[in-house]
């Protein structure tokens, strides 16, 4: 039996009177690649933020490899095995791509400030960073600063930097958004390959074509609720999922 990496149990998030996430539950097992889809406003990013600790859930639990993450700050959750590539790319602008990734590679050295103060050697982290950048196709521009590079590159930098943390679970928040079709396909292939190498991934994505191509399983959320979870082809053919995506009125009109 494969181990459970992440378990989200009945999470509810309210912003004032608005219920952004309503009793959402989700289980991810070791080695899975799960597409997390749902229409705009479904609460996908909010649930992701609950997992990373940027948003506090009003109810429910998040467990990473069986440990409750309640009360842990973002950085502690990262240390316990999560990594996040954000929807809006945020490189450290004063650093080169290599420095961006190498900093994440040095997690062992930055955990304790006093260890950090007494550590100077960066060679092994730089080597690993270059390896990761090459893996996402950025080896050539490793010494460039992010400001000069197009969005497609920065999206891949986000992925490389998240991988540098050697996570148990990689959270990707719309990595394909803003990319053209060939860029999106290339990055989707990369994500698929990472998963084939054994990395467990939760992928929030609007690009359904790519999700259906690379994800064996999908989790669908609508209006904050867990709508469906299972094999991709089967779920995406379900009437309620199609209705959630296309809107009730359209569906009613079409069915008449």
């Amino acid at each position, binding site marked *: 039996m494969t181990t459970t990496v992440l378990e989200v149990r009945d999470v509810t998030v309210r912003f004032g009177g608005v219920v952004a996430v309503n009793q959402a539950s989700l289980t991810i097992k070791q080695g899975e690649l799960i597409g997390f889809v749902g229409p705009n406003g479904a609460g996908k990013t909010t649930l992701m933020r609950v997992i*990373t600790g940027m948003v506090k859930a009003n109810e429910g639990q998040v467990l990473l490899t069986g440990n409750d993450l309640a009360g842990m*700050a*973002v*950085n*502690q959750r*990262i*240390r316990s095995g999560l990594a*996040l590539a*954000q929807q809006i790319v*945020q*490189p*450290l*602008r*004063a*650093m080169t791509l290599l*420095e961006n990734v190498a*900093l*994440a590679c*040095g*997690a062992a*050295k*930055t*955990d304790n*400030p006093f*260890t*950090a*103060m*007494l*550590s*100077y050697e*960066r060679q092994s982290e730089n080597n690993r960073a270059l390896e990761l950048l090459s893996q996402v196709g950025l080896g050539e521009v490793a010494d460039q600063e992010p400001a000069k590079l197009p969005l497609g590159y920065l999206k891949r930098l986000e992925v490389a*930097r998240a991988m540098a*943390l050697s996570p148990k679970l990689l959270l990707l928040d719309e990595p394909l958004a803003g990319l053209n079709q060939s860029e999106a396909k290339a990055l989707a292939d990369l994500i698929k390959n990472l998963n084939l190498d054994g990395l467990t991934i939760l992928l929030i994505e609007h690009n359904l074509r790519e999700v259906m191509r690379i994800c064996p399983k999908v989790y669908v959320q609508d209006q904050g609720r867990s709508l469906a979870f299972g094999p991709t082809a089967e779920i995406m053919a379900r009437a309620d999922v199609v209705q959630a995506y296309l809107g009730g009125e359209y569906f009613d009109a079409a069915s008449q």
Partner: protein
Amino acid sequence: MAYEITLITTMAISILFALSLNFITGFCGQISLGHAAFMGVGAYTSAVMLKAGFPFLFTIPFAGTFAGLLGILVGFASLRVRHDFLAITTMGVVFLFVGLVRQQEFLGGEIGISGIRGSPFGRIGFMYICLGLAAVFAMFSLAVKRSWMGYVFASIADNEDISRVLGIDVSKYKLIAFVVGTSTAGIAGALYTQHFRFVGPDSFGFVESVTVLAMVIVGGIGSVWGVAVAAAFLSVMPLLFQFVNDFKILVYGGLLFCMMRWAPDGLAGIVSRWIKRLRSTS
């Protein structure tokens, strides 16, 4: 000769003071408009202890500790407020400090504490102590900048939310920056007390806080040697040129404006651009 000794001692104290702010603002990106308050805490601590008969060197660790304790408090504020709000908060700290000191009888109130005895090491010996401490802290700063701690500081200065997502305990690092920077400012304060043999509430106010920030910005935020050069230069300008002394705020304010407008990376940035240009032409 005595005049030169005074100039060099003043320079050394200013370098130490400016580098202490550089640790917080330059390395870790936390703006402070109230840094003189920490120097003031150190200066008053040392003054009271000297008056009570303690030896000068003995007062230095106390000056550093008390300033550092206040630094932890302000550091905690920096965990809650950022950027402009932190600037305003730290500005509040310096006004609060001056306001409180003015009311305290045992700190000399408005008049301050005067008649502090001279250094037992003589003027030259004291000058060497100041130069030595400034050099040690400059070396420490350079070492930290090169270390992984400096790397983390740079990431926090760049974008602290991203630092968190990379697993960095931003709060811990910020507090360390504040403690190191403010306790060093306290030590600079102890040197100030011994140097001028007088402390008063007006010596550690908002103007002095802006002056030290000007030193850091003119030198180049984060650059150790740039800040040291700027501090050395700007600290003696009012002593050398009467008009600078008369229009201190105007001169420093103008300099600050020009730097922010045309060379936000300060002297260090200007020089490194020159070097780059020279290399590319040769």
